[in-house]
């Protein structure tokens, strides 16, 4: 069997990710095999015969090996499980039907019983910008382009505090300006969603750790708290603002 340049490595061995390790091991096996079969040396192979001998079908087979072993891929873009539901884990909490019972359940979300004003702590987030007063509105999840498309035609319901797990700026691009507030379960204050909400003057918590907030709940964001500086992430410093649910005890 042919030996590859990277087969001898004094300091490196395995990848951190099992999926990356599985794919790269399979590709290296394939390269050894095709190099042997080609009957040529590396110099002719690397930018010559390998372009014909290492094919797109080979790469599809590399992925299929993992699927055949029972693996289902995590998804990040909604289009991925929609096109290949057999290859990806189920995308729960995206349809209107699912959202009747769905909620984010972050294991590290701080919670407390309702206070005298009926506010129950349901989590915290990194405040993007400080505002004079807290904001209260109706929690509505935005986790699919279907919902964005619907609200793009019908308008965003009044008083919506969008609960999101996409720290990007594109999923909600055409309707973002209509949100009263945003609670995002990912990213940092410097993520694109953080940048855009700050420019629009919309209260926003990034990296939110929340639990037990359901579609239609009344929630209050403590956006009067101090904004989290970007350098705190590198310094490992925490500075959060609270998210309360009203009225459910």
């Amino acid at each position: 069997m042919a030996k590859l340049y990277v087969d001898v490595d004094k300091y490196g061995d395995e990848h951190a990710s099992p999926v990356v390790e599985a794919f790269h091991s399979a590709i290296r096996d394939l390269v050894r095999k095709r190099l042997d079969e080609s009957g040529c040396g590396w110099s002719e192979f690397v930018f010559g015969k390998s372009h014909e001998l290492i094919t797109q079908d080979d790469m599809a087979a590399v992925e299929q090996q993992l699927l055949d072993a029972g693996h289902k891929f995590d998804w990040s873009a909604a289009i991925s499980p929609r096109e290949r539901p057999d290859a990806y884990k189920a995308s729960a909490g995206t349809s209107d039907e699912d959202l009747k019972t769905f909620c984010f359940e972050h294991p590290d979300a701080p919670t407390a019983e309702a206070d005298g004003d009926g506010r129950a702590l349901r989590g915290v987030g990194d405040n993007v910008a400080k505002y004079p007063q807290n904001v209260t509105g109706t929690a509505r999840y935005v986790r699919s382009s279907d919902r964005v498309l619907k609200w793009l035609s019908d308008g965003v319901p009044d008083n919506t505090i969008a609960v999101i797990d996409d720290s990007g700026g594109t999923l909600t691009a055409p309707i973002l300006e209509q949100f009263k507030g945003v609670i995002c379960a990912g990213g940092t204050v410097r993520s694109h969603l953080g940048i855009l909400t700050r420019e629009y003057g919309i209260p926003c918590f990034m990296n939110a750790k929340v639990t037990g907030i359901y579609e239609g709940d009344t929630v209050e964001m403590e956006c009067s708290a101090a904004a989290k500086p970007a350098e705190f992430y590198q310094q490992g410093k925490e500075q959060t603002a609270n998210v309360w649910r009203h009225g459910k005890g």
Partner: protein
Amino acid sequence: MAKPQLSYAQLLETNNMLQTNGDECYWLCVTRTVQESKLFPVPSYMLLSYLNCFYRYPGLLAKIEEKMSAEEIGDRMRNMGVKIANPSMGWGLTNFYLLGREWLIAAGLLRPQDAADDVMYVMDFWKRYQLAWHRNDGHLFNKEFDHRGQFLPERQLQVFHADLYDCQTGDELHEAAHQFLAAASQYCFLIACESRLCLHTQGPYKIDDQREMIVRDHFDLSECSLPWLDGVGAEVPYNNLTVTMAVDDCHFHICDDWGSTEAEPEFKADKLSGIGLYTSDMLSEGYIPVGMNSREELTQTFHELAGNIKDATAKLWQRIAGWSRDQMMDAGAITYYACIKDLAHVAGVYDVDDWMKIDHRADRFRPLFNDEYGRDCLGEMVGLISLPQQQISDYSMMMHSNAPKRVYTPIPYDILKTGDYVPSVGDVERGITYLPEKEDRYNTTQGTLTLSEFNRKAADFVPETLQNDRNLLCETWVKFHYDSPQADDLYKVHQKHSRLLKDRGAGLRRADIEKIRSQE
């Protein structure tokens, strides 16, 4: 321009650039953002783009330099706001190419010495471009300047400074500018498939003891090289817009090679105290004012542009929402790969097949790039630095992390003795796309052109700033010759469109600009 030849000195320099680019790439990726999207498969399309860069950049850069050198394009870039700014040039050109190389090494498909001629050339092209573009601040990239980018000459800064309209929270211009900036940022993220590649901020420039000026560019807003803007971008009248901003009581301590900023205290809307608006491209004589004849006209222009941009955002979003995953992959990969396409537009050698297609050699790997592999592999390459070849001697301490790692594998020096390397990936080969073919319309400052018209005009165009050896009249020359007719002529080229400085010449200093502003 002769390509660099393999030698010990050349390898030392090339490997130095690999190391410094890797150090900065790590810092940017770890500290500046978290990239994700529910709409686009972002890490997956990034991986596809990196491979496309690896296979195609060497051939395309050589094609550009047959017409115009990297350093001449860099010289021209000091006088316009087009996409070959940051993040494209300070980060994208080198790092996208090198990440493609690193992926192929990890997969066993490349040895670190293979494509050595290509690596030397790509890094050398980058160095020459950057040194020319950064000529006024004298650095190779913003990282080297402690994260600052001061590209513009005094004569341009004086025009930007003088023609700013004052504004403050609550007035109509301030509100209109603020709304425009938010809408434009959002549109730029969408055009660029969730990336920052259509936005660039440079500076800061000191206006007075209490104020700094930053210059923010927005690229590819109208019908341009990107096929997904055909139709939807038609109502946006300018392809590139540059906004000049004066900011009170706020110091921009980071202006990085991604073109993004950090300020202390934080830059919020209430700090904005002056604003201006310009357009430019590779066919314009520098920056052309937009709506700058009066305060009222500028306010109205911001309102109208924000409206155009919001309409275009909604239309583009609906188009994208209907795409297949392969189309999203293509658009994202092309956005990254073609971030340097304006090099070809400046030189007048742009070809749609060169820049809007995925090379078949890169496309072979597309089936690997599902969401999980994309996320994990990108995370390993630029965040964890955990690919096996990125691990180095246990005594080593990487910049910013102190871990025994490095982002990019150097070219081994033993090839000088053995000659055992394959120099190049070769020419650009056939490409594919799942997107509709680009329609033959390009919105420029010379009107809407076909590509052949655009290329012809670009190839023939020599901006006044480069005519008559003006390019060699640098800031040091000005310092010692400002009282000469030649210096006056130089300044008047930049003052041609200025509301307050037209024909004022070279004798003014910063304090004079403030006096002129106060007399308006």
